[in-house]
């Protein structure tokens, strides 16, 4: 398991070298988007309109942060469960999105899209919202302000700690539950 320091925007070369289990420290710009924001992004695409940020080489963080207290750029900011974005992810990967960041399993179509478009799925530690917020140095709402916690934010990150869960070669890190050992098979 290797360790990488990567900068955004991410390239095919950046992604192709990654294997499930690798640790990545990401620096640069990432965008927050979760359930409601994804729906709005796809509605814009359907209407042939421009998105509020460039998908090419981009990384989307599935996060709805808590409000920033005085003196901090953002509140707690850990990942939300990713499967809810699976119905949108393959399309966004096909348009140049290189990475998504969240927690939990992805469906088969999303995993396939990562192989087809040289993209990756990173895991961040769920529930470590206070800790992860330390890697976010700036945060600005750039779209869908009305969604509150679900608005799209442009965030500057420094050495954001990530784990490669699904790589672009079909590899996956999650453990397969041992039902036999648990006595139900």
């Amino acid at each position: 398991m290797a360790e990488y320091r990567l900068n955004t925007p991410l390239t095919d070369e950046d992604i192709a070298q990654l294997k499930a289990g690798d640790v990545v420290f990401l620096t640069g710009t990432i965008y927050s988007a979760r359930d409601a924001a994804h729906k709005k992004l796809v509605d814009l695409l359907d209407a042939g309109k421009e998105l509020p940020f460039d998908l090419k080489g981009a990384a989307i963080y599935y996060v709805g942060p808590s409000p920033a207290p005085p003196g901090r750029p953002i509140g707690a900011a850990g990942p939300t469960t990713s499967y809810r974005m699976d119905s949108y992810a393959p399309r966004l990967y096909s348009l140049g999105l290189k990475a998504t960041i969240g927690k939990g399993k992805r469906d088969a179509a999303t995993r396939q899209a990562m192989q087809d478009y040289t993209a990756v799925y990173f895991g961040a530690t769920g529930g470590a919202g206070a800790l992860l917020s330390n890697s976010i140095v700036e945060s600005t709402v750039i779209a869908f302000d009305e969604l509150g916690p679900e608005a799209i934010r442009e965030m500057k990150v420094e050495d954001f700690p990530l784990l490669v869960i699904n790589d672009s070669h079909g590899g996956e890190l999650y453990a397969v539950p041992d039902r036999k050992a648990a006595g139900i098979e």
Partner: protein
Amino acid sequence: MRTIQTSDIIDAVAKMCVSSNTELPADVRAKLEKAMAEETSPSAKEVLRQLLENADLAFDTKLPLCQDCGLAVYFVEVGDEVRIEGGNLRDAINEGTRKGYADGYLRKSACDPLSRANTGDGTPAVIHFDFVPGDKLKISYMAKGGGAENMSRVTMLAPAQGWEGIKKFVINRVAEAGPNPCPPTVIGVGIGGTFEHAAKIAKRGLLRKLDDVHPDPDIAAKEKELEDAINALGIGPMGLGGKTTVLGVKITMEPCHLASLPLAVNVQCHSQRHEEVIL
């Protein structure tokens, strides 16, 4: 009759919302530390180390432990010798929630189920009332995050399925949830009652301390049996593999209809944020 002012209720509830979301309960910390000592996989250890560092940081900075500060759920025991003065009890709890979520910079996650429009202030809370003897008012708060709650299930088993059927369903649920609910989780199991009551008692069980032992030795043994079996699944912290998939299993059992065997599994994340206040 003893009189309790709604202003005192509002303040107590607000305070509890903030402290619960920023201070990891001592019993949860102890379990996470124990798990870290027992894990051998480096990734499992690293996840647990991050969770403990996160708890320290949240305590020091007063940032929430998790950005998902939950839907506010309350179990309220109202003594029959208590009179509430200055307004309605439900309104007071909602007002306290509103205040706590604003004061603590907590995320407001309550929204319309279809339009998805956020109510903007963390309310309405989900409140369960119970009426008990005495002159006290006990309010238990739980921050119920969406990721873990989504992995919960209610089912109606056939009576013949018995304990084996219950066991299989609970373990399968945790296996299917896998990494999604932020393992290591705490599992509340409600057995009996009716369709809706099973779900309620499954959640109420999550108010117990992780290190307590059920007073009924038979149920205590069943909790241990489920905990060991679930940990044998090897899902591990964040689903990366390891020995710790659950920090605890809490069973609540009540009588049911002779035709029924209602079963509910309520999944709670590793933060297990809950607190109670007695007025």
